[in-house]
């Protein structure tokens, strides 16, 4: 419906301006067309998996191509996009639980 987008048109610039003036950018996980419904459980879980897969992949590619250098896979910047998404979407208690499971090697997901 047009009225919501109209509200957006005249309100979004204020939001952006306000955040610019104070050097603080309001930014959150964007709408993901894979999860268009009310139920967002998978979005949170998926971004958690994506983040860990990505770090694994990054780490692996680092081993393959830069075996001699001592760059860590975790410092690969694009991976941290997924980390931002899952921190925005997942309750902290879930992330804590999964991290504990990862440490213990009992995490059920396929990373």
């Amino acid at each position: 419906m047009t009225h919501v987008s109209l509200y957006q048109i005249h309100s979004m610039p204020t939001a952006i301006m306000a955040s610019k003036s104070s050097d603080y950018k309001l930014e959150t996980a964007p709408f993901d067309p894979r999860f268009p419904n009310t139920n967002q459980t998978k979005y949170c879980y998926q971004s958690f998996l994506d983040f860990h897969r990505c770090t694994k992949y990054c780490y692996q590619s680092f081993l393959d191509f830069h075996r001699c250098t001592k760059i860590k896979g975790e410092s690969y910047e694009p991976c941290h996009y997924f980390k931002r998404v899952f921190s925005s979407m997942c309750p902290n208690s879930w992330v804590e639980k999964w991290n504990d499971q990862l440490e213990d090697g009992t995490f059920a997901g396929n990373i």
Partner: protein
Amino acid sequence: MDWMKISLYDNASPIMEQLILFHDYSMLIISTILSVVSFFMIKMMSNKFISSKILENQMIELIWTLIPTIILSFIALPSLHLLYLMDELNNPLLTVKIIGHQWYWSYEYNDFNSIEFDSYMSSSSTFRLLEVDNSTPIPSNCQTRLITTSSDVLHSWTIPPMGIKMDATPGRLNQISLFSNRTGKFFGQCSEICGANHSFMPIVVDVIPITYFISWIKTFN
């Protein structure tokens, strides 16, 4: 007794504005039907013409099927439109995670630094059973994504003036968008029976200008 007590709250979001308009519009249709039908009923009972010989009339059957169909579609289409509009989320700037507990709400803001707090009912006499110790700040005129979940049983997070009611289900994240175009303090109460203290876990949302919201975030640095 004022109208505020029997009508809906003043809207605080474009969605609620549309919901109120839709409510008034469908009430208009309903009262028109009620008046027309009662007029004909009284009219038919009070006159002396009796159509006792009519066994079949295809035309009248067709008319009294088509007219209600058309009227119903005039209610159904805007209703569906609103239903889908309420699910829509346009480029959110902020995500607020709302977690229901027995019997309090806790909130998490993780877009910047990790902000986490619990919100218990406070014993204030100003608004009995509605005030909380930590209210939830939300920037005004800003697309906000609300994620509700629960750590134990079903709860439901509600702010009536914004047209928001979303179940908090354990193990599931439910999303709803919030866009408030009015600043102020808005109240709600848990709307899913969740145990003994179900009535004592109110919700307070402070809609504040975005600059104030950013300064609030900065206090956590």
